[in-house]
């Protein structure tokens, strides 16, 4: 255990833990980190931002080869064009996001006024709606260009999800997301944790399972299987379907709260999106 704490100090995570006022989510995060450290001795925490490639050495080789000609590059470029293109009313995204495009690290966050978790995808559409533009779809299509551009611009920033402990709504949303993550569902009776905690590092058929830690750092993701860049909620949908559970609505409350919990678990990890996966 001493070794673990030493490692925590070395990675600077204990410092955030001590200065954090939000005991419960922070304890969850620490517990996950400890679990991962025991399960994957010798693998640096930062590596988990690379998903299963943190330890899947064979997969990592082809991944690194793919990264030499990143398949998400076009999406990043197209996203930049969208970002710079003024809306019909003359305003632009910049009017909604003063710090944009380097903003991915601050999402999702609790919006006290709206009383809900606001994800980056939702914030983009709220901006569009406020400016009289049609909202974008949440799983496939051009929203991924916007997200790719913002994600690329935010590379190197550290995930920094804030959960205001004093706000009962925020805490309830976090707890709801956590419960979702650990609840078994579907005919195959798996929870997210069955695969991404309990069996992280194991192979399901030929797929090496990633750990929940680092799940969110690199979204949106180009998947060879999709032949396109897709959102985190598209991935959630796929993982729900795999176990024959009915997927929830992209950007509905369930997935937003799940994203809130899951992204918080990666607090302190560097953003490195968009990613490329099988």
């Amino acid at each position, binding site marked *: 255990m001493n070794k673990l704490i030493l490692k925590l100090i070395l990675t600077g995570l204990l410092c955030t833990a001590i200065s954090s006022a939000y005991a419960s989510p922070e304890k969850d995060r620490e517990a996950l980190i400890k679990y991962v450290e025991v399960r994957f001795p010798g693998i640096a925490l930062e590596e988990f931002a690379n998903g299963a490639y943190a330890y899947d050495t064979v997969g990592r080789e082809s991944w690194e080869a793919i990264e030499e000609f990143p398949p998400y590059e076009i999406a990043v470029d197209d996203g930049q064009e969208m970002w710079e293109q003024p809306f019909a009313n003359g305003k632009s995204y910049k009017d909604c996001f003063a710090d944009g495009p380097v903003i991915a690290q601050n999402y999702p966050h609790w919006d006290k006024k709206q009383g809900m978790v606001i994800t980056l995808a939702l914030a983009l559409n709220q901006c569009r709606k406020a400016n009289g533009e049609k909202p974008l779809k949440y799983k496939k299509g051009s929203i991924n260009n916007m997200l790719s551009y913002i994600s690329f611009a935010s590379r190197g920033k550290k995930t920094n999800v804030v959960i205001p402990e004093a706000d009962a709504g925020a805490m309830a949303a976090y707890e709801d997301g956590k419960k979702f993550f650990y609840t078994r569902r579907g*005919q*195959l*009776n*798996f929870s997210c944790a*069955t*695969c991404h905690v*309990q*069996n992280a590092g*194991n*192979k*399901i*058929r*030929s*797929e090496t399972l990633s750990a929940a830690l680092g799940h969110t750092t690199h979204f949106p993701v180009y998947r060879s299987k999709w032949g396109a860049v897709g959102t985190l909620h598209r991935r959630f949908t796929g993982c729900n379907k795999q176990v024959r559970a009915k997927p929830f609505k992209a950007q509905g409350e369930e997935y937003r709260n799940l994203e809130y919990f899951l992204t918080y678990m990666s607090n302190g990890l560097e953003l490195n999106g968009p990613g490329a996966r099988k």
Partner: protein
Amino acid sequence: MNKKSKGLLSIASALLIGVSLSSSAVLAAESGSNASSNIEEGKKLSFSRPKGNCLACHMIKDGASPGNIAPPLIVMKARFPDKKVLKDQIWDASKRNPDTSMPLFGRYEILTEAELDKVVDYIYSL
């Protein structure tokens, strides 16, 4: 594993080598069906992704790219002298391990009773 009957049944299982298992309680229920074709069908069901998909987690002889979540399915008779215990494991793995990563094939009706019996026959032949 059912420890009480282990000793006795492992002797019994030694006599049951091969596919002539028709005297076992499980198979008695489907007398009339052909044991070796049951095993063939059981193999198909076990390998099929929409059905058993056992290979997702278990290494099985002849199975391509198995996962490694679960123990290899080998020498089943020695490890499951009581075939009923094997069937129970496949029917509802959560009985032995509440935190199991194995789907509950019978209880959640992923396999029908008839399909599950064929899978049991096949797995027992390994």
